[in-house]
């Protein structure tokens, strides 16, 4: 998304131009739905949450500080909504500031010597479906980062800003999420 264009649209919305906010919705509805849908696992619920994100954003648009990216601000609202949902449903939310494993810095390489890779055998589309399944199996905090990185294409810096964490920690968690998914795909072909 174009950062400057977003800021112009925000200004226009604050001046009462509802068409400008309509454009903001059109620009972000798909990426937010992709993120929320993969976090809550139900499309209808994800649509409701996506709508709620825009309503909250509209109501608190004056509190948006233009020195930050608008997309980051929107994803932060969405992330808080998702976390609230998990809390209400009593789904364990692992804090991503806590290490998952002892070898968080140097995940060890476990490669079968002779066996052909199972992942390699799958076509990309089929693999995509399996990744969607595997995403539902990994801890929510790691899932969120994986989706931001690979589905929404956020940078590590943007994710670090949303979660208020060091960039290195975020990178490490994304690597851990990928490894978990890879192992899940290997164990459950």
């Amino acid at each position, binding site marked *: 998304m174009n950062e400057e264009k977003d800021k112009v649209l925000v200004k226009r919305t*604050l*001046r*009462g131009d*509802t068409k400008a*906010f*309509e454009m903001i*919705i*059109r620009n972000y*509805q*798909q990426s937010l*739905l*992709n993120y929320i*849908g*993969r976090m809550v696992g139900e*499309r209808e619920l*994800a*649509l409701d949450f*996506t*709508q709620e994100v*825009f*309503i909250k954003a*509209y109501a608190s648009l004056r509190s948006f500080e*233009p020195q930050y990216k608008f997309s980051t601000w929107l994803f932060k609202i969405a992330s808080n909504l998702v976390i609230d949902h998990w809390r209400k449903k009593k789904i364990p939310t692992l804090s991503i500031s806590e290490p998952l494993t002892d070898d968080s*810095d*140097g*995940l*060890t*390489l476990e*490669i079968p*010597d002779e066996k052909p*890779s199972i*992942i*390699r055998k799958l076509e*990309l*589309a089929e*693999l*995509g479906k399996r*990744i*969607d399944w595997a995403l539902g199996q990994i801890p929510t905090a790691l899932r969120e980062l*994986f989706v931001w990185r*690979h*589905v929404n294409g956020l940078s590590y810096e943007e994710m670090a800003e949303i979660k208020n964490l060091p960039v290195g920690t975020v*990178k*490490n968690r*994304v*690597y851990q999420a*990928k*490894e978990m*998914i*890879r192992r899940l*795909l290997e164990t459950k072909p």
Partner: protein
Amino acid sequence: MSCLKIGDLYAFLEGELSPIQRENIEGHLSSCPRCREALAERRLLSEAALSLPDLEIPADFTEQVMAAIVPVRRRLPVWLIATAAGLSSLMLLLLVAVISGEENLLTLLARLNHSFWGYAKNAVVLGAKLLTLLSLTEKVLGSLSQPIFKGLSVLTSLLRPGGQVFLMIFALVVFVMLFYFLSKKLMMGEKT
């Protein structure tokens, strides 16, 4: 060189290594089939993750959201509210007069028209008088200000240097406060 760490593989794939680190890893990869295999697997996984399909969004989703958003009511300017209130009161008075049957509508309008232009004439005369008064005030203040400020200058020169400095700072603070108050009152910019 021992086999690569997972973090190195991902950093390599995402192009986040320095040229020297990259060269070292490429050197190792050229001689280690296990690490090459590991890298290829992770590359495939990353590509597949990037091609995850979009979730289907209803065609009228934007309209649904816009309908759910209650537009923030914009505050109307005071002059507009006053004008609207005045006009509606006038209409109400006219309506009451006509319904009560005391006056014919045309007669009432004619009287109203006459009164209106009478008031307008008075307002213009009053405005002209006010302008004359303002110009007189300006002349008086202009002629008075010169001896006042001269007197103040002579008086303050009798004070000790410390007192003079204090008085000047005090006057400066008063001017700054006055300027701040006026600029706040007259500010037209949008609050961000």
